[in-house]
């Protein structure tokens, strides 16, 4: 299946990446090439095969005890923030 310009614009919006109009054609070409190439998987008979999400699948994922293991490190948490004030993250206005 080929990926057209409007599909690229749609997935770019889903991925929250601004893609300039002038890049859309080239990206559509590149993604079409990759998608066309991965479609060779259709040759493989996978009827009745269980999809494998992880090679660690056989093991039971652990849950740790529900206790506090960390905390009181506000400075460390905020140390890489683009903007902070009074010990809080500052984010753009969310509610119009």
């Amino acid at each position, binding site marked *: 299946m080929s990926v057209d310009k409007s599909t690229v614009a749609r997935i770019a919006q889903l*991925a929250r990446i601004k893609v300039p109009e002038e890049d859309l054609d080239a*990206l559509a070409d590149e993604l079409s090439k*990759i*998608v066309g190439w*991965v479609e*060779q998987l259709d040759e493989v008979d996978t009827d009745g095969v269980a999809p494998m999400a992880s090679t*660690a699948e056989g093991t039971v994922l652990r849950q740790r005890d529900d206790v506090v293991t960390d905390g009181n490190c506000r400075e460390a948490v905020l140390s890489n923030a683009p903007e902070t004030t009074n010990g809080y993250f500052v984010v753009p206005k969310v509610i119009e």
Partner: protein
Amino acid sequence: MANLTDLTIAEAQAGLAQGEFSSKEITEAHITAIEAARDLNAFVTETPERALADAEASDKRRAEGEVGALDGLPIAIKDLFCTKGVKSTASSHMLEGFIPPYESSVTAKMVDAGMVMLGKTNLDEFAMGSSNETSYFGPVINPWKRNSDDQTLVPGGSSGGSASAVAARLCLGATGTDTGGSIRQPASFCGIVGMKPTYGRCSRWGIVAFASSLDQAGPMTRTVRDAAIMLQSMVGFDPKDTTSSEMPIPDFQAMLGQDIKGLKIGIPSEYRVEGTDPEILALWDQGIKWLEDAGAEAVEVSLPRTKYALPAYYIIAPAEASSNLARYDGMRYGLRAEGDSLSEVYENTRAEGFGNEVRRRILMGTYVLSAGYYDAYYIKAQKVRKLIADEFSAAFETVDAILTPAVPSAAFAHGEKSDDLLAMYLNDVMTVPASLAGLPGISVPAGLSSDGLPLGLQLITKAFDEETLFRVADVLEQSAGFTARPGEKA
């Protein structure tokens, strides 16, 4: 005294133990080497002051008689590992100024073992690439050159800075990470040993995530023994990583120097991939002969779905990447761009922060995960992954290890493949299958091409059988007797 930057890790350990030189001396020698080789662009961040402080602390511990397994050894860390108080960028503009307030579990173990950290090595942005040309901080140069021309060559990727640094004697060893071949492929391009352990051996905690079901850390060194020594200080159960393995850890060095009489070595004909350099196929034949001469039995094995591993990988890895990289939203850390609304801030931040290859993979991943395509692409790829893993399991019922080439070609020139996406992706055709199956693999330098470039052979074993992997790799290394060094062009 031998040149301190030429030592193997094992030799440096012995020299330090016997007091032939101090950690400070060997560290200073490496800092000087790094300064003299800045044109390779192998490091994103050099940490000479930290290294000297580490070295002095190590010498003090040694004087007091308490040393760890990596004590005093100058080592470089791929800039995908978060290191406390030291910039950790993933070679991306997105994380250009990021200084983690925590230490990755793997590097924490190495620090505990007494490592001297020389700095952070360059990589493809977010580990996405096979040539180290996608780094925001510029391409890395391979210290090797062809006999036939003077063009600069890529070191492979994504652990290209680590591979280049180890090959150029800028560190005794370096960490790498391998998602589809990012340790083994650059190791082959640079003539060094690169080892990816079984998925789950090394904790992923504190390593910038690319594709979480595939990402695995491992050592990059100049000898198989050095890889065993380094790996010993990287592995281990970590409750902070839900897929971290609780399997017992063997003594990896104990398997070296043993014979391989009676071992069965699988030779999968499906790795005679179209377009593979004939010299590499000849080297593979030579490798089979070496192992047979050492008493192993070569056995044909069939892995018929091998050719589907790469397309499955290029669905699964981008899908996981698109999810993992959703965290870069410009709010809590990393780059933030301006915008008139929250949505615009997100979109502008991610447009500015990610380079072309990362953007392409996020879009590809978003596409295969989007409504209407999820089953056709993502679930289909996971089913193929299962079949590939099952084929390996079946093969390991009859063989102890599998021998293949590590790469389909020798190192290529900068720019040579950057216009052809699929040609670039094909670099990983030999390494991706074992990644999908979570198996340990090692690339061992085995010979030189007629143009004077190193070529590696790959060994793969069943999950958690690094012992057999090291045992056979050791024999392969001895047989190949690879002693060539970069920069010795006639």
